[in-house]
């Protein structure tokens, strides 16, 4: 039986987030295997532009647009999505495991009495037609495989940067405005949103991350990493030792008590490779380590290594990349 899949798009700063397109491609893969279908939902106020943008990727968009959704509230967003799923009879709801996805998916799953798995890194269809997923447990020390069964509806949130983003295919699909009223006022109200200091690229969405540790010795010295990051369009990350020392804000911390990141390329500069750091970055596709100490554990988890002083090596890399990428 074909699965009727709803992917939930997300808007940040007025624009569609890239994670929405990753979820779209994951949803499509399952739809193809089950001869099912995929629609997208987008909730907000005055969101014609991102809705059209999403539809330009060939997916029909249900635009839930209204002043009730002008300010983000997990309560109203969850209620709107719950009603949409009921109205349209979706079997599977896919979120990105972003701060919004983490906040809304459990609410939607509860209201729909659905099966729920968060932070999914692999999504597949089992022989019996049920969804089969992989979700890292024990803070990434082991992977667990789960079967979703027993419930009429399944809700999943997918780890950012794990699935390729869908691309625009020129076949603009339909955007349908769906009226959904929310009767209850939210009990928790967002009074203010404060933009983070630190880099402008969200760590969990970055394709390339340049991370530094205690060895950077000061906030100013992180400039050497920001210079490399600028050339590569990368985000800058930090170990806990660097964050605790005040060199970078907590929003940039990678690891067990920071963020789990999953970029294509991760540079660990002067980071020893403690297990609590490794669990936050070891699913990166390619890891490069630069460390003075040839015996640093980070090298056991890296694909490429340079034994040397980061203050010497990193600027040289920046220069080489500038030349290669023609940014001089």
């Amino acid at each position, binding site marked *: 039986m074909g699965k009727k899949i709803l992917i939930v798009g997300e808007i940040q*700063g007025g624009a569609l987030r890239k994670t929405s397109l990753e979820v779209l491609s994951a949803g499509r893969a399952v739809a193809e295997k089950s001869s099912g279908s995929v629609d997208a939902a987008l909730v907000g106020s005055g969101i014609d532009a991102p809705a059209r943008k999403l539809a330009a990727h060939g997916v029909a968009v249900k635009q839930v647009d209204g002043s009730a959704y002008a300010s983000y509230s*997990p*309560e109203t967003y969850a209620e709107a999505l719950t009603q949409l799923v009921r109205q349209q009879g979706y079997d599977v709801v896919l979120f990105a495991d*972003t*701060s*919004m996805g983490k*906040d809304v998916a*459990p*609410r939607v*799953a*509860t209201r729909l009495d659905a*099966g*729920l798995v*968060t*932070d999914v890194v692999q999504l597949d269809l089992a022989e019996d037609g049920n969804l089969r997923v992989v979700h*890292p*447990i*024990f*803070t990434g*020390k*082991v*992977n*667990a*495989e*789960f*079967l*979703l*069964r*027993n419930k009429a509806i399944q809700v999943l949130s997918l780890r950012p940067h794990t699935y390729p983003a869908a691309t625009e295919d020129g076949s603009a699909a339909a955007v349908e405005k769906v009226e959904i009223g929310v009767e209850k006022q*939210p*009990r*928790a*109200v*967002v009074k*203010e*949103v404060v933009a*983070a200091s630190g880099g402008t690229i*969200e760590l969990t*969405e970055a394709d*390339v991350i340049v991370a530094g540790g205690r060895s950077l010795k000061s906030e100013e010295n992180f400039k050497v990493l920001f210079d490399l990051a600028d050339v*590569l369009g990368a985000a800058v990350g930090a170990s806990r030792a660097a964050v605790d020392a005040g060199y970078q804000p*907590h*929003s940039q911390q990678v690891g067990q*008590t920071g963020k789990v990141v999953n970029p294509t*390329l991760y540079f660990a500069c002067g980071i020893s490779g403690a297990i609590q750091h490794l669990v936050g970055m*070891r699913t990166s596709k*390619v890891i490069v380590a630069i460390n003075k100490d040839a015996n640093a554990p980070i090298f*056991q988890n*890296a*694909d*490429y290594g*340079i*034994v*040397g002083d980061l203050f*010497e*090596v990193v600027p*040289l890399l920046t220069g*080489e*990349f500038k030349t*290669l990428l023609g940014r001089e």
Partner: protein
Amino acid sequence: MKIGVLIKQVPDTETKIRIGPDATDIVREGIKYVMNPYDEYAVEQALQVKSQVGGDSSVTVVSLGPARVVETLRTALAMGADRAVHVKDDAFEAQDSMSTARALAAALRSESFDLVFAGKMAIDDNASTVPIAVADMLDVACVNTIHSFELSGDHNQVTVRRRIDGGEEVVQCALPALLSCEKGLNEPRYASLTGIMKAKKKPVDEKSAADLGLGAEEIGSGGSGVQLTRLLPLPERGECKFVEGEPQEAARALVQLLRNEAKVI
């Protein structure tokens, strides 16, 4: 004020995790169990609220799990909590986060807490699901992953901060509410010796599935939509390729490898 805290017992963060012989559980022998680190922030915040509000305020810690969980409940009592509820039944085995949330919601319902704290994530199942699901089941407000907390003077409302992608939200919320706690919220206290002594005499109420009126279709594997099928080792990474030579040469060679071999640039 009646304050509740959801605490889970988990393997210590330092534990080496090994997959067991039938690949459906980790090797449990020799594991040291502790309070989930994020739940320590939750207990600490609850104790701070209790002393701020005073009067006949009380802190009740609630945990679902097997017999060994009592140790963790005692730890919270030793930190200063007044009472513990142990939700315990063989029927809870092999259940998913939603079923756990249903059982915990049932345990909280009869208590009518004004404020409940939980951790943002259990470091064993990494679900980040239970607090929100419990709140939604109880139909109370919930703010997730808070790292700052302020109770209004009339004790009716809280103002909290939470990190979101790209920034931070300041959220105001009327009580009753459930708040999940993130690192940075506070510095959890250690249990004092007198605290440990006192904890021995504090009450721990046991609640079974039947006590909570939970049927087989709501809990255990029968109530669960998610079934663990097997544990998988992490994919192995190959040997590290050390790029040798003078720094300038090494930098050039690495850039070439990243472009031509790894094809990531």
